[in-house]
């Protein structure tokens, strides 16, 4: 335990935080989730360090869906209503709201498939390993999710032109 763990956290945390943000829809929840996962990795570092990034992604997905399960089906935090109300009117904020709204509408594992496939740019096979499902399921989930995102982005563009 030591420098290689510290190096992993320093170099990969921002990227992993962005994954967690899209999975949870809330910055604070994403930071908590990432911290939980990294603490778990700290304890198991000798076992997981050779595939640390894959392990982290898988743990983020599992924990984001298990949280929902463990909390006894309490409603999830409304995804789109946390980080969009910043005093900023840039295009990115509008896009963020549209993306979070669209992701919120997806079932958790479909959401995870879209995030890993298109934010992380992972091959289908690796997404399948992270989600513990077949490549066919990943393709189907990612395709449905993309449809939803495309519709949301198109609506947002139409809205911004009026």
């Amino acid at each position, binding site marked *: 335990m030591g420098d290689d763990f510290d190096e992993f956290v320093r170099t990969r945390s921002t990227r*992993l*935080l962005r994954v967690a943000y899209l999975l949870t829809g809330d910055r604070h929840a994403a930071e908590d989730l990432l*911290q939980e996962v*990294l*603490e778990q990795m700290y304890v198991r570092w000798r*076992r*997981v360090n050779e595939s640390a990034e894959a392990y982290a992604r898988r743990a983020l997905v599992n924990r984001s869906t298990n949280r929902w399960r463990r909390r*006894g089906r309490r409603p999830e935090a409304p995804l789109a209503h946390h980080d969009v109300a910043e005093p900023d009117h840039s295009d990115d904020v509008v896009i963020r709201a549209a993306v979070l709204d669209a992701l919120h509408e997806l079932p958790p594992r479909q959401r995870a498939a879209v995030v890993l496939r298109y934010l992380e740019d992972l091959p289908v096979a690796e997404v399948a390993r992270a989600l513990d499902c077949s490549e066919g399921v990943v393709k189907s989930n990612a395709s449905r999710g993309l*449809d939803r995102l495309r519709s949301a982005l198109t609506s947002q563009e139409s809205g911004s032109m009026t």
Partner: protein
Amino acid sequence: MTDLDVPRVRDALDRATGHLDAPPDLLDRVRAGGRRRVVRRRTLLGAGLAVAAGGSVAGARLLRNGGPEVMPVSNRLDRPTRGDLAGDEDYLRRVRAAWRQHNGDELRFVGEPHVTWAGRTPAGPVALVAQRLPPRVVSPVGQVEFGLTGFVGTVDGRPAAGVTEQMLTEAANSPAFLAGPRRDVLVVVDDDRPVSYSSAVRWDDQGRAVRTFRPLAFTNGASVSTVPAQSDGLSIGLRSGDEGVGLINMGEVRWTPMPTLVRTLGGASSDWDVVAMDGYEDRYGYPTPPLVREWRIAGASPDGRPFVVQTLVTGRTVRTFAFVTPQPVLIGVAESPKRLEVRLPAGLGWVVAEEGASIAYRVGAGDWIPVTGDAALLPPAATQWRVTRGGARPAVVRLPD
């Protein structure tokens, strides 16, 4: 969706997250949290082994295809229903219905839900339920998930399921449940190990956790007792031998994450940490997140001597420790102190802090000397410090002689 849409979606996802950077103190928080987990994990692993030895959860050898050679067995799944409502078929039917409704159709269960225990309590009937899932390896160390389990309490006169847990080989499921709206009825199901109960933790003169326990008596498969209300914070503790005992719905009690405030004050800092030392954690209580933020301030005096000031929060009770050697010194125990003020041993000076405040100090009637940040090491000769938050009037605090 055409291929042409994919770059557009990728760009949107990038732009939706481009404002995020990992917090600068994340590594410190992770290392501190990781050290806590090492301590807790030792406890949990010990508990799991004790249960496995008692026959409550059996391990399973795995075939090459990942399926188990032997179906895991569990007292929760394979024993007849116990408890004074075990023969009440109408109640058991309503419990199973509540369980099914709670878990929906997302999980591919095998067979019917099994009521392990069902009994009357001062908070209405309570049941413990378990149901098989197709076995599959779910952890890096080869544990096999084979079921889901949880308690079904009574809400508005009807059975209502709450928190559920995975059932894993080589691990113990929580046998304890707090029932009732005030969380003042403790149900502990008998899983073949003795369990003792403590109502509250106290601290000895070095700041270490101390509890007094009494053994719980199991009758017809469970112990049911009335305890102080736990709805605003968990004070109770349970132990079996030297190990902690799981409380399944500890997370239903107020749960607001409060990240530690980590500050480094010049020079090389030390990693002295009471959390990593035996006795300071309340190992038989339940680690609810602090209701007041914890501090960890590390640094070195101008002549290079390292120090750490650290607070540990249990509910609203704050224990403050200082290190100038590897042995911590308890500075004090207080309820929700507004600010941190610690005279370091060995004449190193004062560590003062208030989250988000501007700080200045002075010696005698001298000028106020501002410091950088919301935490500072003041010289031993300092006599007052001044705290300013936002546009509020400054508060001047006199340092004891």
